[in-house]
């Protein structure tokens, strides 16, 4: 115990760095380690599996494009959940706001067909943000006015959103044909693939630009990650958001309107989630149908957790989830590892990062004890 006491002062900055950035990395490595043991015990070649996972997610420009494609919606939902968390709000209904955002984009994309891209793209994105924010507004109002818990209300609104989309794609907005889906959005409203921006000659010279399905939505996502970070760090809006998250009573005393902050926070969260739906519609499917989201709103919670609710942390966290998702096909194909194993490794990462805050709490407790003893 005595060495803890001595080492305490100079250990501290190093410790914070490990805790902030290093710990998730360690968690991922430990998860890979445990995943290897699981695969080894189950009779799979762990080396081949991870080689395949790497190949399928980063091994070629096309694979990298697939990782970007899958990371894009997660970046938005991760930001949405993280922004709410910062105000102490658990927006579990990002999925519903995503559906409404996607619906708005799909509708506007058809309605505004023929508009030039410079107008159509922002119009769709703004429309999706408005739809997502509107969908979060009622739960936000209920929370701010009568204290109805947002975990219940946003979740219930998710069901409503999904059923609305489900009804529209079967009924009023259904495109002709056998499949329940809307008409394709106009070409000018689609987010182009990254590789389509370059000429064949450029692609020949710079083959790393052949990013397959990766589309421009990733840049929109990166832009918003930085924007959210700036807002949180440097604006009054962001300051109020954080203050209410730390301590609503103290904030109230300091003159911040807690109800107004709650409404603003959840609506911004909803707008970000709405963008996730928009990029999926504009960049991937070009239309909306019943199951167009594979639970991105819920995966966003895990992304925010791994990122520790830091907007810039959401970028690598979403890329990590995107990479795992992109690599799972190759793992099945080349290493014969069932997709369930990839899911287990994903779950391990989340679990270990969540457990890491327990470890952190434990370390802090020990530090306090050591300090008390030193005095």
């Amino acid at each position, binding site marked *: 115990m005595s060495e803890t006491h001595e080492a305490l002062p100079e250990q501290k900055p190093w410790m914070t760095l490990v805790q902030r950035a290093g710990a998730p990395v360690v968690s991922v490595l430990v998860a890979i380690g*445990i995943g290897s*043991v*699981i695969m080894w*015990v*189950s*009779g*799979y070649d762990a080396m081949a599996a991870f080689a395949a996972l790497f190949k*399928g997610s980063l091994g070629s420009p096309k694979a990298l494009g*697939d990782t970007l*494609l*899958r990371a894009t919606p997660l970046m938005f939902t991760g930001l949405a959940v993280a922004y709410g968390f910062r105000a102490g709000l658990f927006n579990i209904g990002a999925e519903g706001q995503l559906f409404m955002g996607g619906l708005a984009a799909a509708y506007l994309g058809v309605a505004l067909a023929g508009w030039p891209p410079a107008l159509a793209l922002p119009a769709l994105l703004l429309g999706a943000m408005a739809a997502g924010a509107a969908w979060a507004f009622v739960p936000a109002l209920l929370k701010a006015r009568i204290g109805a818990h947002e975990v219940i209300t946003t979740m219930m609104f998710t069901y409503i959103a999904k*059923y609305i989309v*489900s*009804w529209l794609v*079967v*009924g009023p907005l259904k495109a002709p*044909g*056998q*499949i*329940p889906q809307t008409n394709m959005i106009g070409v000018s409203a689609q987010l182009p693939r990254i590789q389509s921006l370059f000429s064949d000659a450029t692609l020949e010279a710079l083959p790393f630009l052949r990013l397959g*399905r990766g589309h421009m939505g990733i840049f929109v996502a990166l832009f918003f990650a930085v924007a959210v970070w700036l807002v949180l760090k440097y604006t009054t809006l962001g300051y109020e958001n954080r203050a209410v998250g730390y301590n609503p009573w103290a904030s109230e005393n300091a003159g911040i309107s807690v109800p107004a902050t709650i409404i603003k926070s959840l609506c911004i969260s909803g707008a970000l989630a709405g963008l996730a739906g928009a990029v999926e519609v504009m960049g*991937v*499917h070009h239309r909306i*149908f*019943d*199951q*167009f*989201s*594979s639970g991105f709103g819920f995966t966003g919670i895990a992304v925010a957790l791994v990122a520790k609710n830091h907007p810039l942390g959401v970028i690598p966290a979403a890329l990590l989830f995107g990479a795992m*998702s*992109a690599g*799972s*096909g*190759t793992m*099945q*194909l080349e290493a*014969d590892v*069932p*997709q*369930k*194993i990839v*899911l*287990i490794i994903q779950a391990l990462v989340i679990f270990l990062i969540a457990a890491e805050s327990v470890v952190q709490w434990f370390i802090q407790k020990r530090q306090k004890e050591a300090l008390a003893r030193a005095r």
Partner: protein
Amino acid sequence: MNTKWSRILAVALALTLLVAFVPGCAKKTTDEGTGGGTEEPKTTVKAAMVTDVGGLGDKSFNDLSYEGLKRAEKELGVEIKVLESKEITDYESNIDQLANAGYSPIFAVGFLMTDTVAKLAPQYPDTQFGGVDEFFDPVPANVVGLTFKEHEGSYLAGVVAGLATKEKALSDKINDANVIGFVGGMDVPLIKKFEAGFIAGAKSVNPDVKVISLYAGNFTDQAKGKELGYSLIEQGADVIYAAAGAVGLGTIEACKEKGALFIGVDADQYLTVPGSGDVMLTSMMKRVDVAVFETIKAAVDGNFPGGTIKEFGLKEGGVDLAPFHDFENKVPQSIKDAVAKARQGIIDGTIQVPDKL
């Protein structure tokens, strides 16, 4: 020291548990995948399938397609591979990877992959694609759409239901009301085929029967299925046919609780839904396995029916009624005769089953 050791022990225990748990659920797939003997004449055909997000273990389409693949491995000696999809985004990359790895034919299971197949097929002109439950217009030259005449099988289910609702000796669940029920998944043309066939079959043997149809709006919500089941039973339905995927599992529960007979769909649900025997009258089987196997066989023989939509009906063995199982001795000969007669009529073409309402 003591606490330190107990901590290490706890971690070790947790790890052991973790490791002990996983193999059970994980190992199975590859054993099945690589297990089958291949002493049969070798062929260079490598067949593969991509599941929809339901994945293997859905006891329905994906599992049935896999059965067809496994049968092809055993009987034709083809190499097989399954890629499971977790997200919609996986459809394209999974099909793409299989095509790149030289698999052909590649089966895409479920109508949600229709667009993806239509988009990728021209990029891989030398690869053959099979779309289970997919309808293409126009059909690319290297694609075959595998569809089913669900209305024909449903007609037989309707014959059974229409007669059973008047057959008090069959079960104490049969009431006096001349009412039967239908539970649909989504209100789409595909499910309308089931409904249309079912109603036509029931009316053919019991013109006064009242058929109540309810739709769940999706294929997954079991609670909704139960609710719809309750509602139908309250309105007097004593035989319920569900063409609604997992929603039907909830309807089975409703039938068990409130007392009604059930007709299953896709697979022989007597076998796939444990404990359903006392309400499961029969099932309308969609033999996806037959369709997949026949398509692989055609590919091996060099006459892959590319560029066409194949319709598998009663005649082709693509749809059929499952055995009555627990009800085998209770179902009167008159019902069995009526089913046999209807089956023959459909196969001869003397009975034309409507495929829409």
